[in-house]
């Protein structure tokens, strides 16, 4: 199985584990989409990389330790960006009534698996 197919497989599993997710984007840390199910993936990938890069820097500057995730919360939902190792970014969008704790639990595990492949 090619790396791309393996990544697609992980994306599919994540969608099954968290069906409430509105979109999932896996990108490089410099903002290029790798696998996704989002309509506007190039733009989301760039923004996810920016959010992660800035989140890491804020975490470092304010002595919060290693970054776990960057969360954007709007009235209608969440956009959460996780580091997938040094090279990757996992971004998910979820509705406002989603269980954020469950999303973190699942997404962190998937991010670790993605990190092995990227």
């Amino acid at each position: 199985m090619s790396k791309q197919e393996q990544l697609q497989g992980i994306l599919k599993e994540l969608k099954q584990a968290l069906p409430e997710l509105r979109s999932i984007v896996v990108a490089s840390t410099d903002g290029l989409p790798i696998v996704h199910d989002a309509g506007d993936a190039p733009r989301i990938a760039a923004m996810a990389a920016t959010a992660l890069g800035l989140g890491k820097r804020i975490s470092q500057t304010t002595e919060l330790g290693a970054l776990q995730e960057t969360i954007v919360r709007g009235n209608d939902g969440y956009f959460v960006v996780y580091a997938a190792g040094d090279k990757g970014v996992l971004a998910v969008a979820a509705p406002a009534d989603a269980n954020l704790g469950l999303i973190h639990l699942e997404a962190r595990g998937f991010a670790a698996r993605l990190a092995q492949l990227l």
Partner: protein
Amino acid sequence: MEPLKVIVTGPVGAGKSTLIRTLSETDVVDTDAMASEDIGKAMTTVAMDYGTLHLGDQLLYLFGTPGQERFDFMWDVLTEGALGMLMLVRGDRPEDFGPARRMLDYLLSQHPVPHVVGVTRQDRPPVWSPEEVALFLGLPKERVVGLNATDPRSAVQPLIRLLELMLVDGESGR
């Protein structure tokens, strides 16, 4: 005197992060990520660079943008409230001049502020001179300054010019 916010922008690889690292008097806030495409360098800015610099009594806040167009949303975010703009282009990469001109036109249409174009790599000939780049871009000569972003005495020159222009034509810079 109020601090002045200056935006440092330009195409990828122009020397924006380098210039801010060379000049900043305080720890630079940078957001480098590994470049996954061939852009002639290992790391690239994904969110912003930030540094501070005094020119005489005047404190400047330097905000550097990412260079790749996919991060264009950050250009607007960072340019908000800026009172001056330094657009850097690599003097040995004329293919960047057109995109730089379009970037400058776009940013000035959104944020009409005093601006200077800095032509980097003047220490590494063959390189286009600031006069040649001014002609190419159709800009007045005084708005284009040559520099070497790794040398503090040289890197500060376009900011000195920008500050002069900000003091003279602070209202629009056009």
